[in-house]
């Protein structure tokens, strides 16, 4: 279903977006399997997005359970055409429809102890077949941001692509998008927001602490142990192109990391 009123945004890139076909058929959504085509094959038939609610708790004045409508309706939807860079060294340009994460989080009135935000994906083996039985991934999928990262104007909760509701395989009905970080930081099918004083442990950090850290900012100078991050393949092209620091959002976000050494894996 298309959204009736989506405003353009000054944060959008002028790069040519990938096709809806590419964006919705080449996905990492391990709740549906490890294959890039598993999410499209399984998610639309299994994920029930209505009704949907998100639980809010931790260090905030307004905890509680918010329906999708409660969360989204008070805000003006915006189109944010962002570069999206996967840690596997491929990238896309995606015309998200979303709302600023800051505007939503402020409504919950985080306290002064809220230093981080933990964000969880749905855990329901009936809707997410790869969560059944034994798995090398501890479900649910957990991501975390520092509060100032979450409040940054580039961070959004996305609810659509190309002016329409998100396809199930892209993390319907609501997901995070933090465009200067590797794609795995952008958790899908969000069901829980928790404000914390301690830095949360995100799922990939738990699975492979030698490979994945907390920040996961796009950084062409720091290799993943198994592949270089210096270049990326834009989906739809055959040859690779150079990866930009902070995925090209350096001007907007570099201040967040002033004083941190970003040249080693320490702050990866």
């Amino acid at each position, binding site marked *: 279903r298309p959204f009736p009123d989506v405003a353009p945004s000054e944060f959008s890139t002028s790069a040519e977006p*990938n096709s809806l*076909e*590419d964006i919705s*058929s*080449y996905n990492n959504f*391990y709740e549906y399997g*490890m294959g*890039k*085509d598993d999410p499209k094959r399984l998610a639309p038939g299994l994920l029930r997005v209505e009704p949907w609610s998100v639980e809010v708790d931790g260090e905030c004045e307004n905890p509680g359970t918010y329906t999708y409508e409660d969360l989204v309706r008070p805000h003006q939807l915006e189109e944010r055409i962002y570069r999206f860079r996967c840690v596997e060294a*491929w990238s896309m340009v995606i015309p998200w429809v979303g709302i600023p994460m800051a505007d939503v989080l402020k409504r919950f009135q985080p306290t002064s102890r809220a230093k981080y935000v933990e964000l969880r994906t749905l855990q329901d083996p009936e809707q997410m077949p790869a969560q059944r039985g034994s798995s*090398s*991934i501890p479900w649910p999928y957990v991501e975390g941001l520092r509060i100032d990262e979450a409040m940054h104007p580039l961070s959004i909760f996305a609810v659509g692509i190309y002016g329409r509701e998100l396809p199930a395989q892209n993390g319907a009905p609501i997901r995070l998008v933090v465009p200067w970080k590797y794609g795995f930081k952008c958790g899908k099918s969000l069901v829980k927001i928790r404000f914390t004083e301690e830095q949360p442990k995100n799922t990939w950090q738990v*699975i*492979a602490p030698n490979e994945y850290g907390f920040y996961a900012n796009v950084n062409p100078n720091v*290799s993943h*142990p*198994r*592949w*270089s991050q*210096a270049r990326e*393949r834009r*989906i*739809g092209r*055959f*040859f*690779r192109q150079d990866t930009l620091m902070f995925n090209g959002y350096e001007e907007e976000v570099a201040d967040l990391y002033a004083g941190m050494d970003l040249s080693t894996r320490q702050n990866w």
Partner: protein
Amino acid sequence: MHVHGLHPLVKPALLLLGLLPMAWMIVAVFAGQAGANPVEYLTHESGQWGLRLMLVTLAMTPLRRMTGWTFPIRLRRMIGLLAFSYVVLHFLVFALFDHMLNPATIADDVINRPYILMGFLALLLLIPLAVTSTNAWMRRLGRRWKQLHKLVYLIAVLGVLHFLLLVRADPWEPLIYGAILAVLLLLRLPTPAFLRNRATAS
């Protein structure tokens, strides 16, 4: 033991069959049927076919031992060369599309990524085997030919490790290849004495 020639069409037919996946890959890419990331598709498919065909060549000796048929050994060279072709394609896709043929970045990958190093070593070791696969080289090398071609065991192990070190969360696929390889290698161990005695007695 049956001693008779292969039907003259067997080898050409096998060659066509072995090239079918390669033809299919190329058609799929040009027809837009290779998904959103055709280069990744080509890389994965060529690598997997290389490994599969390598395992097929390793199955030929046990197959002959178990059945007494000689034709598996006569087809082994062609299957091995097909495996080599897929491995070369795999490397060319990597060198061309991932690295635009830049030797410096290829070397950087080979040195710094253990899984790429494994794959690269496997490719290098395959080259002398492919070169010496002709009858003339077999004659020239004599007994040493057999010793040289035992490298294929190491190459297959490197191939499986290359795959295993690459995957992230779910290693079942490379482990299946590894299990098949382990069985094929175990079948080459000398038959235990008590089994051998019984075989002689019967």
